[in-house]
């Protein structure tokens, strides 16, 4: 297989994959989000659905001329340089360490920091939603500085709670559901990634940006109690 990107690969009988990279890469991920937004703004004939992942864009629905149309569109611009589509900037309160982040100290030490430095670094990082996946609305967030290139655990943590903020491989993941994980839990939010009854059931979109300001365990719970939307006291503003 060639190492030339972007390239188009078949995915089963009824989908194509436009792959921008085969490793974690911020510019390629931005290209994924921008290219997908362009496809949504002007869907080629036969396309039923599109989605972006960390490094590729899924195009579901196949028509005879689709691959050529996608090639032409790919070649038309440098997609990593295209300004991102309208998106939101979220501030999601997070309680770091202690019972809410039982592996903070371990993760901090692996990143070469003491716990207070690690909290300051994570609470001031502004990460992008690289992709949603695994569970509905669950974000892969990055890309964190090199220091956070932590390997996954060899064993799984049997269960982290919904809202857990976990870290590995220069990314954060905010759990949309309670599940096992090989990533280390550094904090807890009360952000509901997916609430079927909400006017916008899936809160985040790929391309959204997020900061996780530090709050005390008590403040986290108070703000979550007072948030009827299930966003755990998060606020957001629109970015253009």
């Amino acid at each position, binding site marked *: *297989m060639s190492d030339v990107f972007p390239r188009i*690969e*078949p*995915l*089963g*009988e*009824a*989908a194509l*994959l436009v*792959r921008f*990279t*085969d*490793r*974690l890469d911020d510019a390629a991920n931005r290209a994924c989000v921008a290219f*997908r937004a362009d496809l949504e703004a002007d869907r080629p004939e036969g396309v*039923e*659905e*599109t*989605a*972006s*992942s*960390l*490094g*590729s864009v*899924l195009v*579901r629905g196949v028509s005879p001329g689709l691959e050529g149309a996608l090639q032409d569109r790919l070649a038309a611009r440098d997609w990593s340089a295209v300004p991102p589509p309208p998106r939101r900037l979220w501030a999601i309160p997070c309680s770091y360490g202690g019972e809410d982040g039982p592996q903070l100290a371990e993760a901090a030490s692996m990143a070469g920091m003491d716990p207070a430095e690690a909290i300051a670094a994570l609470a001031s990082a502004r990460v992008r939603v690289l*992709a*949603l*996946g*695994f*569970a*509905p*609305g*669950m974000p*892969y967030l990055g890309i964190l500085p090199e220091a956070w290139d932590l390997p996954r655990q060899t064993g799984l943590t049997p269960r982290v709670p919904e809202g857990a903020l976990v870290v590995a491989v220069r990314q954060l993941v905010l759990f*949309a*559901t309670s599940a096992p994980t090989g990533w280390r839990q550094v904090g807890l939010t009360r952000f509901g990634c*997916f609430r*079927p009854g909400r006017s916008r*059931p*899936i809160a*985040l*979109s*790929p391309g959204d940006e997020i900061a996780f300001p530090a709050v005390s365990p008590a403040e986290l719970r108070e703000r979550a109690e007072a948030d009827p939307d299930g966003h755990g006291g998060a606020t957001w503003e629109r970015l253009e």
Partner: protein
Amino acid sequence: MIELLACGPLVTVQDAGRPGYLSQGLAQGGAADRMALAEAERLLGEAGAGIETPGAPLRLKLDAPMRLALTGAPMRASVAGRALEWNTAQTLPDGAVLDLKPAGRGVYSYLHVQGGLRTEAVLGSRAAHLIAGIGRPLEAGDRLPCEASEGPALRIVPQDRFGGGEIRLLPTPQTRLFPEAERARFAATAFTRDPRGNRQGVRLDMDGGGFATEGQLSLLSDFILPGDIQMTGDGVPYILGPECQTTGGYPRIGTVIGADLPRALQAPPGATLRFRFVTAEEARAAATPPAKPQPLVRDPREVDLYGAQLIGGVVSARAP
């Protein structure tokens, strides 16, 4: 209204699922056996949302005459002790109590009512998606809204798909990461459908070691679709189902073609599955719609001649 009098585990309402949310991490979901859904559509005209049972027994009561279709894995169906044929649509009277019991072939069985169940829709679908936290398994006492209906008794000849067999695959973008010898061993292996399986995925057993690629633990997570055969960390394959995760990092050695996916997911525990790679052209050519329904003609020995209205419409022989 259909009332569930008794209900085994993991029985859910399913329809065609909710396409369009992959970018938000939500798999389409819906009926595990899409052919059974298509057969119900052919039988009823409009099947909509129905009941999917993974072999769990069911007993339900109708509060109006209703035309029902029974498709998918055959179950023993009866009303007041009278057996009902599977793969049919029939009208049952007001108050009828229908019993469904597993018969040991296939996994997923379907009961649809003409016009479909009118349970609550979430994001455009009534399908339960348990992994995503949408809906819940049905239980005794549940009342499922639907309309009265009636119509002809029909039968449909199902495509056989309830005992495993050969499953055709297309390569995935990761297929080539498996060394050629591993791919050849995969194609030569007879797999057994493990008892561990659900709507998220079905585990396969085999003799011999797991299947691995080089560097598979550092693959960038990418899109997953139902039918993908994913190798877990220990190299054991899973056939992914309608509630599979939308992205993942474990490599996929192949993906089951649409025409064979109902058979892959209907293979009961213990069934043998073999895999054969085909071209995309062959995969597309393999897609076959369900057969046309035929009138259901009962065995004359089952017909109650005293209770049958044999001269409908004739009131008096002397009237004009």
